[in-house]
């Protein structure tokens, strides 16, 4: 019901022109409003979830806060616009959100067909399978004939079809709308397997009462580069989101953290750090932001590594290692273009 109505509402919004912000001027809109609207998921532990008080937390939410810190100087000035896999782009394109930070894979059809702007990768992921240990399965190749819980409107739904098709296996697709419903159906035994991004599996498993009784199979069947998205037609806003992400990565690379950022600002000799923090040059005003935009991000939310470790790192219940998401200097793929 909810999604049907919101899809229809999205279509109607397109029709009635409530989507006035589809054009340029997102920055002015956000600053006039004083609040940044971020399209996030309906709830994935570690990535985007509300606490008991209704305050949102998580890896994706922190990037939303970083954006708000850059644009409004206040990481708390955000509003979470929840969306299922199916409704997220409609909500973004209809103007309900200014930017999307929601476990979203960058693909050709989303970039070119759905007309989104992507701005880099905040999490390099791949699709995996989770099964109860009691099934005694050790490879995805043994899943012929299984019932598979899958979230509707995702890339994982398409990868799943391709994977079983190309391996000559059959399966029953149990198509589900949200991560939470998938979790319930999986635990109730409606499906044998839950498949989604490996990060999503780790996150979902961490919410089980008996995580040790479930295993993630070794096969990773796809590339899922997850990143933020915005609408077409506003280059300035696109640049801002791109460089918010880059700022967090560069900060980590340069060793700038929320703890030492003031010290760095005062004492650093590295010209790139000084440009990043707005001490030298005028990159902030070129973006249409204040000079301390990146300082605000790092001071209030931290650098990429801090965001990662705080929400989903090995010392959290989610327990994800940096892996592909380590800096390129540490053998990973996180690599920011220079601030020059």
């Amino acid at each position, binding site marked *: 019901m909810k999604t*049907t109505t919101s899809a229809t509402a999205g279509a109607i919004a397109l029709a009635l022109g409530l989507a006035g912000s589809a054009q340029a001027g997102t920055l002015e809109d956000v600053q006039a409003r004083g609040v940044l609207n971020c399209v996030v998921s309906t709830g994935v532990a570690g990535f985007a979830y509300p606490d008991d008080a209704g305050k949102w937390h998580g890896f994706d939410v922190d990037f939303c806060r970083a954006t708000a810190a850059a644009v409004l100087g206040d990481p708390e000035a955000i509003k979470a616009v929840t969306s299922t896999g199916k409704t997220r782009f409609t909500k973004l394109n209809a103007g309900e959100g200014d930017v999307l930070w929601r476990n979203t894979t960058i693909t050709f*059809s989303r970039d070119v067909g759905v007309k989104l702007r992507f701005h880099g990768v905040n999490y390099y992921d791949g699709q995996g399978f989770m099964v109860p240990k009691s099934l005694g399965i050790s490879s995805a190749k043994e899943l012929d004939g299984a019932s598979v819980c899958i979230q509707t409107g995702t890339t994982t739904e398409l990868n799943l*079809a391709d994977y079983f098709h190309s391996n000559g296996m059959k399966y029953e697709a149990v198509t589900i*709308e949200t991560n939470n419903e998938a979790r319930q159906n999986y635990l109730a035994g*409606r499906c044998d397997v839950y498949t989604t991004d490996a990060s999503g599996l780790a996150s979902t498993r961490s919410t089980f009462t008996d995580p040790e009784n479930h295993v993630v199979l070794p096969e990773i069947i796809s590339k899922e580069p997850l990143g933020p998205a915005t609408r077409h037609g506003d280059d300035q806003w696109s640049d801002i989101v791109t460089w918010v992400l880059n700022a967090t990565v560069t900060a980590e690379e340069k060793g700038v953290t929320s703890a030492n950022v003031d010290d760095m600002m005062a004492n650093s000799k590295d010209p790139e750090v000084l440009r990043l923090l707005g001490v030298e040059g005028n990159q902030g005003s070129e973006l249409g932001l204040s000079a301390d935009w990146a300082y605000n991000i790092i001071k209030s939310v931290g650098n990429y590594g801090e965001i990662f470790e705080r929400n989903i790192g090995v010392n959290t219940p989610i327990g994800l290692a940096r892996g592909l998401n380590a800096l390129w200097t540490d053998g990973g793929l996180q690599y920011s273009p220079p601030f020059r």
Partner: protein
Amino acid sequence: MAIASVENRSSIASLWRNKEARSVIVQIITVTVVFALVALALRNVAVNLEAIGKEFSFDFLTAPAAYDITFSPFLDYTSRDTHLIAAAVGILNTLLVAVCGIAFATLLGFTMGVLRLSGNWLISRMAYVFIEFTRNVPVLLHILLVHGIVVTTLPAPRNAIGIGDTMFVSNRGFYVPAPVFEDGAGIVGAVLVIAIVAAMGFRRWAKRMQDETGKIYPVFWICTGIVAGATAVAFLAAGMPLSWEVPALKGFNFKGGMALKPEFLALWLALSYYTSCFIAEIVRAGILAVSHGQTEAAHALGLRPNRTLQLVVIPQALRIIVPPLVSQYLNLTKNSSLAIAIGYMDVVATIGGISLMQTGKEVETMIIVLGVYLVFSLTISAFMNWFNRSIRLKER
């Protein structure tokens, strides 16, 4: 000049005072405003799509859908088929649940409507409580409730409840043997059709005889006899050309046989019993509206209670029942769009959901979905209008 304009004004004023002219003017204005709004909306769609660089086109329908739909009882669908075929699967699934739902809701509704009028206090109270509880809870919750019960309380396939080793009940569905037709089954089918035609002929004839001579034949029993008898004889003569494919557990799931899937079951049952409560109230009102004098008059004529109900009360009650019944059927059909909540792949979940999402064609896919519901609704209305006319009071 001045005089002319005064005259003009007074003629407009008099036009306004004229009731007929006024209503024409108001209608013209209304139509103009409505058209202007529609045009504005369409223009806005075009402008907004343009602003984000999207073109309006249905070309995507011929591209491979690339997603799987496991529940497709009518079409052999694979992920290599097009979005158009995926839409067709969704439309047929919507149709399936709507038709089954309408049938079951009607049956249940009429039964409960009658039970509500029962002289037995306990029965009528129970029907009352059920109706009041059900219709005051949103239908989405009923759907989730039934689905939840099926999925969480029934055992997994490995521990399925077997009924005589041929039927199995599990949280992945209810499995029953599937009929397998062998050589000669076609003949039996043909005999069945002929028998039905013959039975209908007999019914006609019996009615004419009753009109002419007043003699009443036990039409129902004779018709049943003709159909069942002829088919049974043909079945035996053709050497019983029917066997059963029994479901069996293979690997993760049952294979073979026919299955009632939890998603279909939940949607079908919930929509049916929810709608049946409204139908029950309509039926009760319809029956109560036939004045008691009619029944008494029929009794006075010597009609037995059964015949009184059949010939006097029901035909009159139907006239009151049918119009509101139509809107219940329409509601049920539209409510079936809640299917996605439990993963039943109807038209909203397929073309209006996954296809929409994968192609980014919000406006186009929503137009298709709205069109489908419109066609369904108009068809139901047309059929019920026809039915309503056929039971109308025939004045002689």
